[in-house]
């Protein structure tokens, strides 16, 4: 066969074209980047904006009313970053916990055979899912400011929890020396319970004799730390909030901003989690339950060994995705001024320093890391839960 070396066939060659396309794409991207960045440099110089990360060690100069770590205006901008990051994580964890609880309740309620309950659950989902989260945050915030009483007339729960316009005051646990042993006992208890469970499962697999381990596990996980706690003479006490003058002193305060954000995020995200849970439960075929009953499994065994593993396989991945969405949505705190990452660092520090590229870059990087972490988690869960083929 004659080899065709003409130019035409070279141009029409798929491989040539593939390479050409990729080179062109690269050139376009490189050009966009180059012109964008050179313009950026030019503009930054023209407007006399500083560059680099030196601003991080400068004095921040503004106060943050809510911080998990010690913070004063004398601290650096980097400290603000940490304060914001920790607050983001706090609101995310609190939101995730409550969203999961509400979502579980609503998801199960939707499948209730009680007409009223299931209709109420549907109503809840349709109502809160179709209101943008930002509106919800603003509404809860305004409601808190409008309807809550002044510090003098605060709602009082057992003289230890107070709720008023300025926020929620709860007793703060004060840790004394020796408490670390209690924590060690908790870890030890969990490890022991796990080993015990494994031992009895092996026994079950080998001999078929089933042993209930719930009691032992509870004893190990809760009892062991309690014993250690009292042996050490209760190395923990609570600092109660008390009304002095016009405001409360002591205890831990959660601001109205925090409350509004936490309530809005959990109420909104719960609608999605509820739907995930409902679809998970509905995904389990009725025949599975009947087969489990036919095998002679008890109600609990059937639920634990047959229904839940299949329901969770469907329900958990979208739920984890919602956790990520909740974390991202927490950045809307900017609208009401709860000092989380986007609001304190991406907002206030940005306004003071003006180095948008660096500051927004750092902020985005944090969300990127959180998101990568959650994707990683999701992959692990998916791998663990995927149907084992035969």
């Amino acid at each position, binding site marked *: 066969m004659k080899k065709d070396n003409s130019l035409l066939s070279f141009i029409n060659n798929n491989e040539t074209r*593939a390479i050409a*396309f*990729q080179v062109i*794409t*690269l050139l376009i*991207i490189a050009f966009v980047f180059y012109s*964008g960045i050179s*313009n*950026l440099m*030019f*503009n*930054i110089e023209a407007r006399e904006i500083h560059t680099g990360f030196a601003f991080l060690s400068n004095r921040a100069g503004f106060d943050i009313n809510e911080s998990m770590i010690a913070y004063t205006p004398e601290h650096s901008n980097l400290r603000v970053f940490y304060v914001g990051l920790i607050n983001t994580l706090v609101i995310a964890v609190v939101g995730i916990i409550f969203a999961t609880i509400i979502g579980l309740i609503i998801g199960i309620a939707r499948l*209730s*055979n*009680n*007409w*009223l*309950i299931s209709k*109420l659950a549907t109503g809840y989902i*349709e*109502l809160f*899912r*179709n*209101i*943008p*989260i*930002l*509106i919800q945050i*603003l*509404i809860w915030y*305004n409601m808190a400011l*409008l309807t809550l009483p002044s510090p003098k007339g605060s709602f009082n729960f057992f003289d230890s929890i107070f709720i008023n316009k300025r926020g929620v005051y709860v007793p703060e646990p004060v840790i004394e020396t020796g408490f670390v042993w209690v924590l060690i006992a908790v870890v030890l208890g969990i490890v022991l319970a796990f080993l015990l469970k494994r031992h009895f499962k092996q026994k079950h697999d080998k001999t078929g004799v089933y042993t209930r381990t719930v009691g032992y596990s509870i004893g190990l996980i809760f009892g062991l730390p309690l014993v250690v706690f009292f042996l050490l003479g209760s190395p923990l006490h609570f600092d109660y909030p008390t009304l002095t003058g016009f405001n409360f002193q002591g205890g831990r305060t959660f601001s109205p901003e925090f409350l509004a954000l936490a309530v809005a995020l959990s109420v909104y995200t719960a609608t999605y989690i509820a739907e995930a849970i409902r679809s998970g439960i509905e995904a389990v075929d009725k025949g599975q339950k009947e087969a489990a009953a036919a095998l002679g499994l008890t109600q609990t065994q059937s639920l634990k060994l047959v229904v839940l593993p299949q329901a969770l396989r469907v329900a958990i991945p979208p739920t984890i995705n919602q956790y990520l969405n909740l974390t*991202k*949505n927490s*950045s*809307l705190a*900017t*609208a009401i001024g709860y000092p989380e990452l*986007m609001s304190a660092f*991406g907002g206030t520090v*940005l306004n003071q320093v003006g180095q*948008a*590229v660096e500051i*927004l870059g750092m*902020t*985005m990087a944090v*969300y*990127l890391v*959180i*998101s*990568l972490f959650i994707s990683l988690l999701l992959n692990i869960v998916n791998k663990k839960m995927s149907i084992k083929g035969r």
Partner: protein
Amino acid sequence: MAVYKQQELRKPPISQVGIVRWLRVNLFSSKVNVGLTFAALYMLYILIPPLLNWMIFDANFNFGEFSIFGFEFGEVMATNTNCGRSAACWPFIYEKFDMFVYGFYPRDLIWRVDIVFAMAASLFVIVRLARNYQHKNKVLLAMIIAFPVVSFYLIAGGSFGLEEVKTHQWGGLMLTLVIASVGIIISFPIGVLLALGRQSNLRVISFFSTIYIEFIRAVPLITILFMASFVLPLFFTGGVDFDKLLRALVAITLFQAAYFAEVVRGGLQAIPTGQYEAADAIGLNYVQKNALIILPQALKISIPNLVGSSISLFKDTTLVLIIGLMDMLAMVNMTANDINWLGRETEGFVFVTITMWIFLYSMSRYSKKLEVRFSTDHKN
């Protein structure tokens, strides 16, 4: 001879028919359910009456004098002071209605916006009527291209003898709809290209598409909006004047494109390999293959998810408030700062919430309907 007389049929027990049976089965089937039912009723009793009182029964509906067929109704319109604080003051919304819908758009020009609204409404009617028309796709395509162009000239003005209206005067529901529709229309083709890019065999293209999609999806929209409003102008040398709305639109479009791309990719992955191979076998090139064989099928199965993604975008448009655009939500504070109507945020929030809810709820119903129409499994 025994006489057999037909006995009258006995009625079923009262507890087994009609409303009593319904109540027994659906509300009081077990002890737990009885408790739950009463708990739910009590909760409704706590929540609903005060809400209705606030919104309707104790509320002020005094919209001023008006006459129907010569009969006079109403009295002088209520003001902030004689409205009271314990219930809703709807005359406030009545007076500020234009603000909520058009923002600061010049009052004598709002007919132009109204025409756009009317066009949008008739668009839906035409789409329904043209369902069985032979060339419906051409009609649809023409409208989808013509509508945004005409709307743009009507709203923005500046040519064809229409007075120009600067974007900082745009606001309210109109702005929300403008942002949402521009975001959807422009980001869709970008999303399709990104999806094709991610699935492409060309390593470089697939690499950059993937990086872009994953990066955008990992960060909150608000960071991208901030980037667009603080950093984007710096990427261009002087002369290019970026107004606020354009920055927001760029951010929302770039953001939404990544989400559309993932939806379309889902559709692309659902197309059996045989379709690709068949297209290759009959000698179609890449563009022909995708435009004629793959995309029509992939887009069709992605329609429900595309609508779902558009719903998210519609919700996200409220975020432009944070970078200082005067959308409907921003009007709440704006109107309640009016010296004559101080402190009427609640009414504003309720009005905006109800409006947004109606939009989003009908969109989500529509997407459910599409899901049923396009579903090919035999569940039901």
